[in-house]
């Protein structure tokens, strides 16, 4: 029974950790599939986390917090699009600029608005996305196995966890089965063909960046007012880059990306439980080794040592219309 409880708890933690990761990775998927490289996922998440916490604290509404988070993130995404699509600026430089800008702006504003050094005040539970308990979850939790799975894994997460999981099939359908999705993929592979068909390359890329902004906004919101109750400086802690790694690891495709997110989140959940545990025959695995694993795997994958990751052909290349 001990083992089942352990596994159930690890899966529970995996779902929680993977939520912002999935949202951010899919945000990146929309951006990169349209040909805009976005290393600014980190900054957009962080900006959204701040905006969501600030708005939720000020208005007492989690929904307004979510709206503010998405607004901030879309705003940042539009700056990125303005620099990279309109002015054909370097996409990596722009993403980096926004990451750094937000890393400074969050603490500056929380100090100015709330008088707190580097964080917002604590948001009341009523203004947060709280865990949702499904019917009978409490009563079934004692039932071995099925009851545990139902009460711990299926039930008891905050709304954004369910939103993220629901978003995945929707995004996959959007990218592969709709006209928008076809054009999105085309504009990332062969923008000149899209242009020839009379569709605006810039317009498509702006739209993709809006979707990217919305998803990153939800991801950031989940960090500050669902998983936590306030914004803290650097609270995204590299998760945007990890999402980027998951996106590459998933070869820019929905289902593999989802599993990459689960894998990275699972590694994190296991790592938290293995701290200092002596495994027979292996000894104590250093925490840092498990933390480094996603990054190492991504490097190996990119180098073609495990499979091959081929990015969208036109990603990172500003489109210049032929004259």
């Amino acid at each position, binding site marked *: 029974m001990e083992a089942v409880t352990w596994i159930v708890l690890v899966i529970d933690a995996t779902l929680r950790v993977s939520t912002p990761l999935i949202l951010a990775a899919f945000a990146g998927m929309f951006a990169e599939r349209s040909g805009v490289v976005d290393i600014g996922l980190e900054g957009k998440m962080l900006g959204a986390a701040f905006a969501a916490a600030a708005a939720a604290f000020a208005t007492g509404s989690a929904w307004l917090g979510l709206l503010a988070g998405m607004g901030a993130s879309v705003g940042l995404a539009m700056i990125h699009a303005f620099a990279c699509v309109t002015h054909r600026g*370097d996409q990596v430089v722009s993403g*980096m600029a926004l990451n750094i800008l937000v890393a400074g*702006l969050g603490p500056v504003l929380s100090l100015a608005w709330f008088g707190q050094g580097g964080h917002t005040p604590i948001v009341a539970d009523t203004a947060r996305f709280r865990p949702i308990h499904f019917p009978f979850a409490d009563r079934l939790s004692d039932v071995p196995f099925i009851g545990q799975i139902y009460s711990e894994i299926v039930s008891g997460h905050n709304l954004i966890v369910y939103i993220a999981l629901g978003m995945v099939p929707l995004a996959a359908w959007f990218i592969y089965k709709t006209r928008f999705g076809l054009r999105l993929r085309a504009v990332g592979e062969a923008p000149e063909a899209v242009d020839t068909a009379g569709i605006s390359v810039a317009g498509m890329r702006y739209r993709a960046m809006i979707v990217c902004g919305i998803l990153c906004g939800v991801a950031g919101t989940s960090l500050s007012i669902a998983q936590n109750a306030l914004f803290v400086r650097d609270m995204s802690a590299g998760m945007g880059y990890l999402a980027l*790694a998951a996106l590459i690891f998933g070869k820019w495709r929905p289902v593999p990306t989802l599993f990459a997110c689960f894998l990275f989140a699972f590694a994190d959940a296991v790592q938290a439980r293995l701290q200092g545990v002596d495994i027979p025959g292996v000894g104590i695995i250093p925490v840092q080794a498990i933390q480094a694993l996603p990054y190492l795997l991504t*490097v190996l994958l990119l*180098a073609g040592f495990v499979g091959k990751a081929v*990015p969208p052909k036109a990603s990172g290349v500003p489109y210049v219309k032929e004259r």
Partner: protein
Amino acid sequence: MKGFGGPTQAPTWVTHGLVPLINLGLALVIAGIIIALIGENPFEALRLLVLGAVGYPEAIGYTLYYTTNFVFTGLAVAIAFHCGLFNIGGEGQAYLGGLGAGLIGLYLGHWPAPVVIPLAIACAMAFGAFWAFIPGWLQAKRGSHIVITTIMFNFLAAALMTYLLVEIFIKPGQQAAESRTFEAGAWLPFVHDVFAAFGANIGRSSLNLSIVVAAVCLVLFWFFVWRTRWGYEIRAVGHNESAAVYGGIAPDRAIMLAMAISGGLAGLVGVNEIIGVHHRLLLEFTAGYGFVGIAVALMGRNHPAGILLAALLFGILYQGGSELAFDMPNVTRDMVVVLQGLVILFSGALEHMFRGRIERLFARRARAVAA
């Protein structure tokens, strides 16, 4: 990678002076607006910042100490830019450089300083170079994108250093993850001590002889990039890889060389911090200096003279920014980070917004004068 546009007839002072200044001005104006929005006077903030950075001897020392770091990371980013590569891994390479310097400090610190210090500098460069060479090699030989790989290597460096400090180098009986202090042989002298030896008294600060290393690097950088075959090859690959191939240049060699040099330069931050200031290994001493290098290289247009000026500017901002918080509690060092982001945005990502227009304006005027 960086679009230098087509050939323009705009005068040099416009391309390399006016346009960067306009971009910097825009970043300053927006930062000023943010300061005004949070209820402080931006002009007063600027006055306090400059005063805090150059107003008294100790402050100047600290400003130059920060400048030293930014010269290293700025040059590191710039050499990679010359080869068309974007090295975001300065942070991790600087971290590893510190490890290299620290290993020499820990194990050979009892040797005489004239032997230990060159060794530590060489070792810091070698470690940094190694950490950048791998992404360079992966880019050149395996086609993996340098930006992603160097980001990943930053996290790998952080994990590695945390492991080493928490598990191996930590001083026994101590809570903080820091090594023991090095013996005196591995202390790069402070500038105020050097001056004191000659009877001159200047303010005490973190400024150490690493600044001499930085000055040497600036000159060597210029010589290497514009006066040697390797520098030419790196620039040729950065400018047009297929043309370079036709010219008989092997791009993969140039890429690996540029990255190794880039990492070696970033590794020197470890010299300034570890054997120059802290005299022990500790966590997170790189404090974002690697990222400032991006702003410095972009502002300095990848030229040592520009990089020196940009590094000085950021030195002033860092030192002045930390002083500013004493008088304006609402404006902290984080405001400098905001400004740094804005500088990268305007002089990097949005450089085409004004550059083309301004250069065309002056080019037209130049033609009109000629005609």
